[in-house]
């Protein structure tokens, strides 16, 4: 009988670069920056790393395929290195693989590193990845347009007015800007008002500029090990352990079968239920201390609050507008600024989110952006579009 991942793996160290338009840095520079940060935190030597996983998504504009970009950049000494790729869940997949390697008892100390260099396209938004079939039959769609449709479908499904949805979306973005403004590693560090957000130029109806996350360069890394080794290496520090790791991937039902309403993520609902169970969480609304969710667009964050089984279905706008997810709310969300302001280098984001939870759990953040007494932190990635996607959820915590 499978037991799940709960408490079998500890996070020994983490690192994260500054995210942003890193014109001066290549993906290779970013990998080194995150790795050096991570290795110092772990307090070990490079030669103690027994295996590594590289997460990176856009090989078209980035480091190309395979695992050699990581091994050759970090000069890893002929150890097993594997590349993971799964849309925006890419880094969480690298982390999951590293954790499973340790939990399986195959390796003691494993590195997971996610990196993305997006700002080499010459245009805004994500790079074009239209496939051979996609450009013949797919829409002339971009990410904001694909996710924007959640809003019209949500309006149709729940009868919530577009005005209320826009108010909630504006609150979501304003909150993330406020959090990001306090974070020196964040891409976008300017607080904006809800009025400014609503007055911004339209990107894809009803999403304005401030409803869309940053397109950023960056890298993040984790070194994981067994709880026993973590305890022996860091006897005087709180131990951050992995409580659950879940992934759910679309079957194609959403895109091709009329049962799906277009107003929620089927994958997230499945992955979240399994993650809560794996972590032993009975009531996520009460037990989750804080979250980093996939706020690629404000509307994504809005519906995700329901799909994570925290806000009632059709009731996320109320929670959002009541401040439930604000930094001083009951379940602070996007405490580091989120994809919205910390930035979203696709293949690094999953590890960046875990990093945000990790630094809160270890009480390493300044007072102004500290979550009170955090115990469990949840991270959530959603890659693809609402109609077909990959969802990854991780929960880490300290006992």
């Amino acid at each position, binding site marked *: 009988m499978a037991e799940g991942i709960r408490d079998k793996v500890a996070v020994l160290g983490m690192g994260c670069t500054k995210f942003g338009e890193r014109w001066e840095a290549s993906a290779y520079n970013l990998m080194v920056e995150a790795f050096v940060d991570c290795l110092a935190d772990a307090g070990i030597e490079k030669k103690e790393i027994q295996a590594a996983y590289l997460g990176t998504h856009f090989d078209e504009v980035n480091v190309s395929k395979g695992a050699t970009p990581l091994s050759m950049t970090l000069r890893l000494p002929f150890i097993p290195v594997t590349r993971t790729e799964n849309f925006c869940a890419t880094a969480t997949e690298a982390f999951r693989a590293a954790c499973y390697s340790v939990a399986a008892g195959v390796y003691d100390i494993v590195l997971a590193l996610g990196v993305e260099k997006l700002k080499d396209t010459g*245009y805004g938004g994500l790079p074009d990845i239209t496939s051979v079939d996609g450009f013949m039959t797919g829409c002339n769609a971009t990410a904001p347009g694909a996710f924007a449709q959640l809003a019209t479908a949500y309006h149709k499904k729940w009868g919530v007015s577009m005005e209320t949805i826009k108010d909630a979306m504006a609150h979501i973005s304003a909150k993330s800007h406020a959090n990001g403004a306090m974070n020196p590693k964040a891409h976008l560090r300017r607080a904006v008002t809800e009025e400014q957000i609503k007055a911004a130029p339209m990107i894809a109806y009803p999403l304005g500029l401030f409803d869309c996350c940053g397109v950023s360069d960056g890298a993040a890394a984790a070194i994981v090990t067994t709880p026993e080794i973590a305890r022996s290496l860091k006897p005087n520090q709180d131990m951050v352990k992995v409580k659950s790791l879940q992934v759910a991937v679309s079957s194609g039902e959403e895109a091709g*079968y009329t049962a799906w309403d277009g107003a929620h993520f089927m994958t997230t609902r499945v992955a979240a239920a399994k993650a809560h169970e794996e972590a032993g969480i009975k009531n996520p609304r009460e037990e989750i201390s804080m979250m980093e969710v996939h706020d690629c667009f404000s509307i994504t964050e809005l519906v995700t609050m329901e799909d994570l089984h925290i806000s009632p279905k059709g009731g996320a706008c109320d929670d959002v507008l009541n401040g439930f997810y604000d930094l001083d709310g009951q379940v602070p969300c996007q405490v580091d600024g989120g994809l919205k302001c910390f930035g979203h280098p696709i293949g690094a984001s999953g590890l960046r989110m875990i990093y945000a939870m990790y630094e809160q759990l270890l009480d390493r953040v300044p007072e102004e952006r500290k979550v009170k007494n955090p115990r469990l932190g949840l991270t959530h990635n959603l890659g693809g579009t609402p109609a077909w996607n990959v969802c990854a959820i991780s929960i880490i915590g300290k006992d």
Partner: protein
Amino acid sequence: MAGICSYGGYVPRYRLNRGVIFGAIGWVNAANIANARGEKAVANFDEDSITMAVAAGIDALGGIDRSKVDGVYFASSTLPYKERLNAGIVTGALGLEDQVRAADFTGGLKAGTTALLAALEGAESGRANNLLVTAADSRLGKPASPQEMIFGDAAAALLVGKEGVIAEFKDSYSVTYDFGDHYRGAHTKFDAQWEDRWIRDLGIDQFIPEAVNGLLRKTGLQVGDFAKVIYPVHYPAARKKLAKVLGIAPEAEQTNLQMEVGESGVAHSLVMFVHALEEAKPGDKILVVSYGSGCDALYFEVTEEIEKVRDGRGISAALANKAELDSYTKLLVWRNILPADFGKRSEEDHWTRFSAVWRIRKMLLGLYGGKCTECGTPQIPAQDICVNPECGAVGTQEPYRFSDKLGHIASFTGDNLAASPDPPAIYGQVEFEGGGKFMFDFTDCVLDELSPGMPVTMSFRRKYYDEARDISGYFWKAVPAKEVK
């Protein structure tokens, strides 16, 4: 006796007031003010002769079993492909069987009536039945030229056969001349013409009477016997003169739609014919004359069956579906005359893999998906394994055509980030009545007028144009409709 069994028409939704053209570029040629009256129909950026011919063909095939169609003759002087059968693309888009005869008719502007004659004579021979003739044109005049004002985009379609004939084909008379009044070389984008006076005095004043009189002599009829006479001449003075010379009564003169559509080249005499059939009464004799490198004159007599196809199909309905194109520069940009900057994203290169096109041809051209024989779920694309999570049967998909199904908007957006020739790119999820859903580009619509649940019909459009390789790629888009026929 062979004849017309059904008709269809198409006029693109956009109309450009000729005064807008003159206001923008009339300074080049002040005399062009004489042409700056009325409106011209302008194909949207995602339309061309193939898509307009398909639209007219769908109109003509309403209520008709498509498996009964034996052939498709497509006439146009603006064929998107010199090699690759344009009529083959039309055939696929109309969802016809693979075992049909199809041909392109092109060159002179009388190609439309010549295609019609070929179909009529084929049907009369008894060796083919239900031949669809479709004609479309989208000719370009140079900016500031008279042709830019005069030409308009439109299409017509006529189903030809021997059963359920609404207009019997009685006789014809043709003349052919190598007459370079208008010409376009194989590598030339714009129409060129010789002097108007020569075109009028020699071409129109001589060839049309020659064809008409030839037909009258052959049949023993008088011009006065015809309820409608159709001749595509845009010069107002030349039309008057011809009417006088031939003795055409004012009520018999079929409008040339110059103020509403413009001259639609190869399609034009058939567009006028379809327009005439919409109002025709049983027993009416109709004379259809084309003009361009000579003339064809065709004589039809309307039957009692005409009442059966009077269901709103034809040119008038398309004419009524109208939106003003408020910008001359849109026309220039859409026709690739003015090179606008759509940003780096628009420069991403995608090349057509024809082996992949072949594999998905039924979906690309006919919007075929599948219907599961186990659970009955319609789905698109038709994958090997049924999409219904309760079913999941393998290899049970039967072809199921979505192009004629009514859909409803499930979700939508207007995307300003996407590189589109007409931003914002509007698209969304469509749920079909009877089952099945897909995310489509929307076209011929305004973002502000959309709402979830709104009905949509499917329209065959040019999905992309690969300028580097001169490839037009086609697929279906959703057209939101306030009212559905």
